[in-house]
């Protein structure tokens, strides 16, 4: 039982970091960003390159990797997404294309083998009768702090106020002197940075290979559908629901059934409550 509680919390924390970024950019710019999984993959590979190839200390490599991916997010928005933002289908296609390009570039550069991203903490921690890797606990802690900081950023700062304003009505915000385009780019960067942070934390104990972005992307999508597109609290709740459901299924039924959980959750949500749990438009 304690195992489910602990491991479920770690899984939920990773999912929440991924889903919140995904929902954030949708809530603000109405962009369904199919390249979100690429941010996750790039975060892991950037850490790998900086720490294992360039031999930077992990404490420096990790934040650098997050910054690089955030920069890539901004670039993606400026160069590829912005010209097509008027068309939902156009944005879907261009972000899908970007994600495929990223995967192929990773494949050509690094091959399909699994890569090792070093852990911040090597030892294990015993909580009750449960042994858990220190890196997992660190992931949980950092994710909680990061999400808390994000909520503070949105609700307590001028930048947050600008995000809220643009998410409610970009044109009206523009008339009030808020540079909507710049906010879109910054939010894309923030969203990419959160996905990269998830990768930096989870890559030491999860998979690092070129196709690693797809599954988190699917999970983030599922969580956002369950939680309600554009809602941050909905995404956090969705992440908890999915993270714990998967862990419970893995423990009590079989690990081979876990991937089905998110799909079933999406199906039920779409049939019973298509707007999701917190499904109001742009409801931060």
């Amino acid at each position, binding site marked *: 039982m304690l*195992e489910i509680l602990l*491991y479920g919390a770690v*899984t939920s924390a990773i999912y929440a970091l991924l889903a919140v970024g995904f929902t954030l950019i949708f809530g603000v710019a109405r962009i369904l960003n199919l390249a979100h999984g690429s941010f996750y993959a790039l975060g892991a590979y950037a850490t790998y390159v900086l720490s294992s190839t360039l031999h930077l200390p992990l404490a420096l490599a990790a934040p650098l990797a997050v910054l690089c991916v955030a920069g890539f997010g901004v670039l993606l928005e400026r160069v590829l997404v912005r010209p097509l933002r008027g068309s939902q289908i156009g944005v879907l296609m261009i972000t899908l294309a970007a994600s495929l390009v990223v995967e192929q570039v990773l*494949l050509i550069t690094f*091959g*399909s*083998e*699994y*890569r*090792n991203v*070093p*852990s911040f903490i*090597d030892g*294990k921690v015993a909580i009750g009768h*449960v*042994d*858990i*890797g*220190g*890196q*997992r606990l660190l992931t949980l802690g950092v994710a909680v702090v990061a999400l808390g900081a994000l909520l503070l950023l949105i609700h307590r700062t001028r930048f947050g106020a600008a995000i809220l304003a643009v998410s409610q009505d970009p044109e009206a915000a523009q008339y009030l002197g808020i540079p909507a385009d710049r906010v879109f780019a910054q939010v894309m960067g923030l969203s990419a940075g959160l996905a990269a942070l998830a990768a930096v934390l989870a890559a*030491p*104990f*999860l*998979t690092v*290979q070129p196709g*690693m972005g797809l*599954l988190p992307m699917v999970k983030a999508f599922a969580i956002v559908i369950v939680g309600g597109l554009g809602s941050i609290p909905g995404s956090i709740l969705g992440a908890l629901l999915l993270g714990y459901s998967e*862990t419970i299924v*893995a*423990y009590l039924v*079989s*690990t*081979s059934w*876990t*991937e089905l959980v998110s799909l079933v959750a999406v199906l039920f949500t779409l049939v019973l409550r298509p707007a999701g749990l917190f499904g109001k438009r742009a409801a931060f």
Partner: protein
Amino acid sequence: MAAYRHVLSALIPALALVAGALLPSAASAQTGPIRIGVPTPLQLQVGRDTIDAVDMAIREINAHGGVLGRKLEMVVADETENPETGINAIKKLTADEKVDVLIGGYTSGVTLAQIPHIQRAKTIYLGIGAASPAVTRGVRTDYENGKYIFRAFPLNSQHQARALAEFINGVVKGELGYSRVAIIGENAKWVQDLVPLLRKGATDLGMEVKLAEFFDTQTSDFSPLLSKVKDSGAQFLVVILSHASSDVFVKQWYDARFPMLIGGIDVKSMDADFYQRVDGKAQGEIAANLGVRAPLTPKTIPFWDAFVKKTGRAGPVYSAFGAYSAVMLYAEAVGRAKTTAAESVIKELEKTDHVGVVGRLQFDENHDIKAGPGFINLFFAQWQDKGERVVVWPKEQRTGKVVLPAWIKK
């Protein structure tokens, strides 16, 4: 109508001439280079090692004048791990490239999908990657169509299950004195074939199988499964995986210091750089290997060293042993048959008695490689301190004893 007939009668000889020029005649097919088609997943180490090993064998044979006075040449096609792409690779090699023989393979699911196309093309296939017994089943059930298929490597999963049971008996039960095991394996065809046999084998040995479970090949979090194994009270965890992430599996076992020894068939842990790749977290894992740098035959060490010199990599993975030997034994069969005609070469391949790089190679009545002492066998090696790979089973090849990781009590 008459004019139409007139045009047609003029066209037919012209078409025949063009066809004659385009299609190689039987005579020219027997004089040009002997073409070896290599369908293999290029993005994976097994694929790259296959190509390097085939290339090594071809260079050696050509340096000695080739076969029947003809040089050998290699044509590669990427079969990936996707059956559809695998079928296209076979079509490309047989229909477009018109190869004389196919040497390759990795994923059983892909190989099984390719087989009908290989048989239709009436081209000899020497599998060196896939382990499912179903690959050579057609030889027994429908010899006329199935005879083109041989498995030159690795051991099929039935033989692997038997070798694993012997290891459990000799080391897990005999030396470590354990009585409780758990078996987990990836949900793939060759493992589905292997696990029931292994479970029965372990039970027959008097071992208590506390848990037997499959996991998805895409699994990235093994912690729930490892926790279940721990809770089951198993002292040794037999793991069987090839396509799933061995790296993640051992890291998660090590990170939480799960209190059971792990071992079994973990294909990616056969890589010479596996220990470094996972930051030393494989220490203690006992994995089956199909070849080690030891004098298994007079050819083992020279091949290993030449491979390392050629590729600059730490050592070959299993497909390299099979690929190199398969080219050699095919060349010998063609030499004996004095032709590359499939029917004649098959007859000679069936008589194969070849000392390969990791053992003696003979085919059984199913065109499957023979297993056991004197033939091809599994070697169980443990990753020990500083990434040293120590052979702990079978006894004849042993280079050291099992060492338990610090957090595991006997």
